[in-house]
């Protein structure tokens, strides 16, 4: 050993003596390191892809809002594509602005606020009953009360019309109308039913978020207050509620963001009385080729969405302060309900019946009855499912025998399947690059760009796609009416969930297994194939399955981007609604609901997680 003799000598003082590499040398070395593996290359490619699929459409629609659109050159005295304040003025200031923007905005806000208040009221009580009391059947209710969220929201809208539709609109009357009571318009359509339905649909948000906060709540905090002499209500108001505030705020904001983009429910229930929200107003502008105004409305929806979620992000950050308070002493203490035990169970059961049992039962019964609300044996038939040679103009067979259904089902499977497969794989790749690339800027950019669609309600995103891909641009042919545009839009729309799943899976995996393989002599490709992908099999399946479920029940993207030849189940059923083929429409919706529900269950089984983690997808 060279150091045996002179080991007592300290090594030369650090720094100063070493030759300092020139910045050129540093860059050459970094380039060498970064280009050694395809990670960075893949990162750059995916970054470009998502810039094109996510950022460019959004920019495009914002530009639409301030540039002269096709057909308006003469009126505005400018050339196509010139900058103009016309559409902003028209949407925000002109006499028609009330119909185009302000009233829909008001309606959106009031419906959202109403839905939030109602779902908070119901949701907090249910969450408390489920997680902190000895109510009967707690475990069963814990799952059963989440079901409404697994079903498409407009399932409820269709059930509602089946029950309450009145003579204002043609076609088969609702059950109450048929029984001789004409529901007033405000019950049948518009603000009231939309608010109720959205509230019931999003109550599971509150149950999940508030419930998990309640379960994590440290009972010792409660006990300390009690020991100091606080009464039960004082504990509730001064200890529990303040600590629950972040969870409550968070669920409020999530519900608001979701209501903002909700299309199906206001479309089905609002249209008959011309009750418009922002999403239906946007849809109308697009349908009437008002691309400039559509751009303004879409950009406004995005802006509201972005602001809302930024508030949420801020709240989540603040909520972290509270998390540190929780200690390992946290345990789940149950309150005894005593005499209230039965009524409480009754309340939960009622909510379940209202939000799951009744709508599904109504829809199902409506599909096997010829005339509404006539419960005689001869009125029941399976014709609408499997009948043949029916005496109708279109749909002369039951819906299960109709080639249209199967074509739509095939389209759905293909489009949604392809998109979720792509987003699942891309999500894992993004996760890999974000965690592994030595180029920090790339990692940050990828993380943020794939999260961007989350801030943009689906309908606005679809409008953005329409704006960008409706006409040929550069090497890209016009995509409107093709399967491609649907797949691309759906894929981009699902990226937030897919990339988050990928990032968290890669974070959990850590670097070690891969580095161990590297040490053992495995190159990049080999590591991907024999280490990373096999270990991540489970999360890859989830990454594909979750987007698939949400794509199956999704409506807002398709309603704007699909054409009859690319019909999917949701648009097919919506068209049946438009044609007043009530029974067939309801049957298709039931099929969608069944797929979505079973898919969610399968995903939960496969990943052994609760739905809470897939929340928002």
């Amino acid at each position, binding site marked *: *050993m*060279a*150091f*045996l003799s002179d*080991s*007592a*000598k*300290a*090594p030369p003082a*650090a*720094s100063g*003596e*070493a*030759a*300092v*590499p020139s910045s050129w*040398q*540093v860059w*050459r*070395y*970094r380039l*060498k*390191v970064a280009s*050694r*593996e395809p990670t960075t290359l893949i990162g750059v490619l995916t970054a470009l892809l998502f810039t094109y699929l996510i950022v460019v459409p959004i920019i495009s629609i914002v530009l639409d809002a301030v540039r002269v659109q096709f057909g308006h050159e003469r009126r505005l005295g400018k050339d196509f594509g010139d900058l103009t304040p016309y559409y902003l003025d028209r949407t925000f200031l002109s006499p028609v602005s009330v119909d185009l923007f302000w009233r829909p905005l008001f309606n959106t806000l009031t419906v959202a606020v109403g839905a939030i208040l109602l779902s908070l009221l119901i949701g907090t009580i249910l969450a408390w009953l489920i997680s902190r009391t000895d109510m009967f059947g707690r475990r069963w209710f814990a799952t059963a009360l989440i079901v409404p969220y697994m079903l498409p929201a407009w399932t409820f809208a269709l059930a509602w019309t089946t029950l309450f539709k009145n003579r204002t609109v043609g076609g088969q009357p609702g059950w109450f109308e048929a029984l001789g009571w004409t529901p007033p318009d405000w019950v049948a359509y518009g603000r009231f039913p939309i608010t109720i339905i959205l509230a019931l649909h999003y109550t599971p948000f509150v149950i999940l978020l508030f419930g998990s906060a309640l379960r994590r709540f440290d009972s010792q905090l409660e006990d300390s207050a009690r020991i100091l002499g606080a009464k039960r209500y004082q504990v509730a108001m001064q200890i529990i509620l303040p600590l629950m505030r972040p969870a409550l705020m968070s669920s409020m904001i999530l519900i608001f963001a979701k209501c903002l983009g909700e299309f199906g429910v206001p479309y089905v229930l609002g249209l008959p009385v011309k009750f418009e929200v922002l999403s239906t107003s946007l849809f109308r502008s697009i349908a009437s080729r008002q691309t400039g105004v559509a751009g303004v409305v879409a950009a406004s929806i995005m802006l509201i969405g972005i602001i809302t979620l930024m508030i949420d992000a801020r709240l989540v950050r603040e909520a972290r302060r509270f998390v540190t308070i929780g200690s390992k002493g946290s345990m789940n203490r149950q309150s005894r309900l005593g005499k209230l035990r039965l009524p409480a169970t009754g309340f939960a059961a009622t909510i379940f019946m209202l939000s799951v049992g009744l709508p599904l039962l109504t829809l199902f019964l409506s599909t096997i009855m010829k005339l509404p609300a006539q419960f005689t044996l001869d009125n029941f038939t399976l014709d609408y499912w499997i009948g043949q040679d029916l005496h109708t103009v279109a749909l002369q067979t039951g819906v299960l025998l109709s080639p249209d259904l199967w074509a739509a089902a095939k389209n759905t499977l293909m489009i949604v399947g392809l998109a979720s497969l792509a987003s699942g794989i891309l999500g894992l790749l993004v996760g890999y690059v974000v965690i592994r690339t*030595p180029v920090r800027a790339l990692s940050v950019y990828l993380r943020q760009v794939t999260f961007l669609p989350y801030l943009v309600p689906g309908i606005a995103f679809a409008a953005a796609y329409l704006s960008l891909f409706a006409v040929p641009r550069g090497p890209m042919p016009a995509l409107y009416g093709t399967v491609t545009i649907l797949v691309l839009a759906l894929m981009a729309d699902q990226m937030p969930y897919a990339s988050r799943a990928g990032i968290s899976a890669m974070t959990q995996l*850590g670097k*070690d*297994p891969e*580095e*161990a*393989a*590297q*040490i*053992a*002599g*495995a*190159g990049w490709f*080999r590591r991907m194939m*024999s*280490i990373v992908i*096999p*270990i991540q*099999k489970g999360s890859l399946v989830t990454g594909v399955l979750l987007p698939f479920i949400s794509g199956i029940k999704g409506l807002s993207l398709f309603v704007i981007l699909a054409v009859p030849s690319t019909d999917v189940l949701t648009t097919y059923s919506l068209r049946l609604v438009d044609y007043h083929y009530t029974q067939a429409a309801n049957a298709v919706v039931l099929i969608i609901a069944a797929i979505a529900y079973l898919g969610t269950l399968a995903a939960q089984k496969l990943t052994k997680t609760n739905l809470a983690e897939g929340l928002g997808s």
Partner: protein
Amino acid sequence: MPTINLRGAQKNYGVNSANAVSNLDLEIRDGEFMCLLGPSGCGKTTTLRMIAGLENLSGGEIRIGDRVVDSIFDGVFVPPEKREMGLVFQSYALWPHLTIERNTDFGLRLRKLPKAEREARVEKVMQALDIAKYRDRYPSQLSGGQQQRVALARMLAVNPGVLLLDEPLSNLDARLRLEMRAELKRLHKEFKTTIVFVTHDQWEAMTLATTIAVMNEGTLQQMGTPNDIYDRPANRFVAEFVGSPPINILSFDKKGTSDVAKEAEAYLSARYPSLRGIGSVGIRPEALSYATRKEDVPQGSFSGKMVVTGILPTGGSWILELKSDSHTLFLTTHALPRLELGEKVRFWAPPEALHVFDKDGQRIAEADKLLRSTKLN
């Protein structure tokens, strides 16, 4: 494997952050069992990962023999998979989806060895580490110690020129750790591999290493044999980091001076007037002795009077806590101390037991010779 050489190796994780490793010169020779020892965050794991190629350099270069494997100046970076080294991770990093046998076999498959040879080598290494009976199990079905042996087997199977170990024993219980230490020493003999071992446990370093490199805050403090490190610490950091109970430091600083330190200062300046610029003196607890009567204290030794304030049995030995007005000393003795708390005793140490450091905390080498030349009577 030829000698591994780090020259001015440097690593920082970001432009404005402090160096995790700065200007590190390290030479690891063939067949050596080297321990990188230091407190957590001292840069020892980073150093190990730089050698393996898992961390890029921010400065300097690494050579294996004459071959540059990593250099900013030459723009060279040989990736880990081409460095032919073995690394056992602190977390073991076994591949959860492969059986123990496949885990062990992985590297051999990559090298495209004939099946018969692969099987023979896997068998040999699994036998050597006593894991053959778990061959069809998955890592999650094994205990920590078993997993640790699999992690070792996996690397030994490919017969790497150098085996890097990143605190591989830290997750094991005390008994298992002792067994594995013996195992590692045996493997080092049997496979004749160069081993670089990272640990913050000084006893582990002392018992295993042929050479210890003590690091702190990203810089190398001292490199030498275990005895060197213990008996002649190059600076105060090494002196204080190695040894338990820790070395007694008598600081000569104007502010921190205690009565015992003043006695030491007087003792040294009276007997060794040529020694100048002393910053502090260190005395290991086991180098101190005590006596209840003045005549039992050898002439010429450094001694003083203190009060016994604590007697702490550690099983087989005792630690005495001695206090004066402004100083506390720890003393280790192997004979049952027949003392009462509050009793006055005299501590003493032979002059060669004094470690003399300058004002910057560096060892004053000339002091060693001087102090050793004095004979006690």
